């Protein structure tokens, strides 16, 4: 029975239904015969859906247009300077620099600690009570409001022996507010995300990877370093980017731990250390200050800064999407990875 025999002759088959016969495509959803309750629910769903679309589009377009209206190149290069004619005076150079500094500090501390903790929890985790305790503590931090974390930070950095991390007043009182302080607390903010993503990544790796490595004579430590961690690089990166997003969007910690002056104030004369010991602002506190709720009342600058912040969030979102959809790895598809990390990504929204 040759394969050719299985396929019928083209001439023998009727190619299509005869002309003129009805060809009905699948009819659209008809709800006329549904019970009333169901029809009401259906209408509600549509109403809510359309409303959601409209609100979402309204917000996005509003911020876009307001931002474009007020965004000027000079804003990027000038430091904040209050004046009567607010459209001319100053820009948000310092806040942008401040955002960068805080973000880099926070991530620089959170990533290594987070990856190490996550690895320990997933690969070792002995004794069990210690692992549970660490897990609970991480959960608590993840759920704690950022104001409370800021209070922690202030408490710690106001101690006398940590005065070198910020400035000490003549009377001996430690100011407690500096980029170091803010960065450290931001690291605590981002820590749960990095830990969770590392853990998830490691637990999803199939055991056969580890077995293969042991069979070649490697110890668990080397396996982790050489095989497992490289395998979950996208997960770690995603956790890092999520943490970054959370850091960049936070205002409360900045306002409490970075002082209320909008420009960078150095402490001492050492170049980098001086800035880090000093105070400043970030885009978020800049926006807050320039809104009617803050001191200055410069809505235009606030809109411009908000636009910049939104662009950064957009880019970060894009990076997360790219990372979660890139599937060179063996297990799962991009979608399953995205679905797995969705609970983490949802924590991006905690402020």
């Amino acid at each position: 029975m040759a394969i050719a025999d299985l396929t019928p002759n083209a001439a023998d088959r009727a190619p299509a239904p005869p002309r003129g016969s009805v060809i009905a495509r699948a009819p659209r959803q008809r709800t006329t015969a549904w019970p009333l309750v169901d029809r009401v629910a259906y209408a509600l769903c549509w109403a809510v859906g359309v409303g959601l679309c409209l609100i979402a589009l309204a917000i996005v377009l509003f911020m876009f247009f307001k931002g474009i209206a007020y965004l000027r190149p000079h804003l990027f290069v000038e430091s904040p300077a209050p004046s009567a004619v607010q459209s001319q005076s100053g820009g948000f150079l310092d806040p942008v620099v401040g955002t960068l500094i805080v973000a880099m500090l926070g991530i620089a501390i959170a990533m290594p600690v987070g990856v190490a903790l996550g690895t320990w929890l997933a690969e070792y985790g002995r004794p069990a009570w210690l692992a549970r305790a660490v897990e609970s503590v991480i959960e608590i931090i993840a759920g704690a409001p950022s104001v409370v974390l800021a209070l922690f930070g202030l408490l710690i950095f106001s101690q006398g022996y940590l005065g070198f991390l910020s400035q000490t007043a003549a009377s001996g009182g430690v100011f407690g507010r500096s980029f170091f302080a803010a960065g450290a607390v931001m690291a605590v903010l981002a820590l749960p995300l990095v830990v969770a993503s590392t853990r998830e990544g490691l637990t999803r790796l199939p055991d056969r990877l580890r077995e293969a490595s042991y069979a070649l004579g490697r110890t668990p430590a080397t396996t982790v370093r050489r095989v497992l961690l490289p395998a979950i690089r996208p997960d770690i990166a995603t956790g890092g980017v999520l943490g970054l997003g959370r850091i960049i969007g936070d205002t409360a910690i900045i306002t409490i731990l970075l002082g209320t002056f909008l420009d960078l104030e150095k402490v001492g004369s050492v170049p980098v250390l001086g800035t880090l010991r000093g105070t400043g602002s970030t885009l978020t506190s800049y926006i807050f200050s320039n809104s009617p709720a803050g001191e200055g009342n410069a809505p235009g600058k606030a809109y411009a800064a908000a636009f910049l912040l939104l662009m950064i969030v957009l880019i970060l979102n894009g990076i997360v999407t790219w990372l979660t959809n890139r599937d060179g790895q063996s297990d799962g598809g991009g979608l399953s990875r995205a679905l797995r990390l969705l609970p983490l990504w949802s924590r991006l929204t905690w402020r």
Partner: protein
Amino acid sequence: MPPPVRRIAVDRDPYVAPPRPAGNGAVPASSVATRLRTARTSSVHARERMRVESLWLAYGDNWVVRDVTLPVRQGEVLAMIGASGSGKTTLLRSLNRLTEITAGAARSGSITLDGQDIHGFEVNDLRRRVTMVFQQPNPFPMSIFDNVAYALSERPGRGGRRRRRSTAIEEAVTDALHRAGLYDEVAGDLERSALRLSGGQQQRLCIARALAAEPEVLLLDEPCSALDPISTATIEELIVELRESVAIVIVTHNLQQAFRVADHVAFMHLGELVEYGTSEQIFDRPTVERTREYISGAFG
């Protein structure tokens, strides 16, 4: 060099021997086969319930079912056999308009239930009268009772609350479980999660669920392909018992199963209905060459 493919030279009508399993199962299979055969031969003449006329079905631009005409009768079991891709599952799904949930499906021709075009019905009414059991058992994540009562509470006029269970619903559920042959096994605790049952039990639960709404036509899409022989035998007995009250259409890959349960057999190949006839005629004396080839296992 790959091993040579054995070609079966077909130069005479093949004789299809009735299946004689090794007889080491708990259910003596030979008695099942004879019971089924005797039950089958005593079936009275059947009443036509559905009719498929010149049906064409397409997904997108690809015509999957081409110009098929078939009757579906109550009192008998219609088996649709054929290789994969022959369109038999699509044809089955079109009988209760399940093809419509796929975007881009098109059809031409008519399908009627008791003389009325099914596309004139409200689709949910139709699906209550023509229900379907799928290949993989798919019980809902609820208790056994709620699974079987699921379609019942959809009937207008009946309450669907879990606490407030009317005796009517309880009776209907017990009745359906009896008809599906599952009652004795689960009567102990009907509140158990349905997902804890074994594969065969889950499939019988799905059949009970379909029967609870008292359908007029029951469509079965390879119901036993995922099951062990004992569950298969139980379900095949069930099918033969049900055919008096419900018209049954079963799609199956398993020629022996078709032989055991079917009264009429429709053989489809690449979307076309190649041959339709009684099961004796198809299995013993197929008229079309293609049917003969398929029955004898030349392809599949």
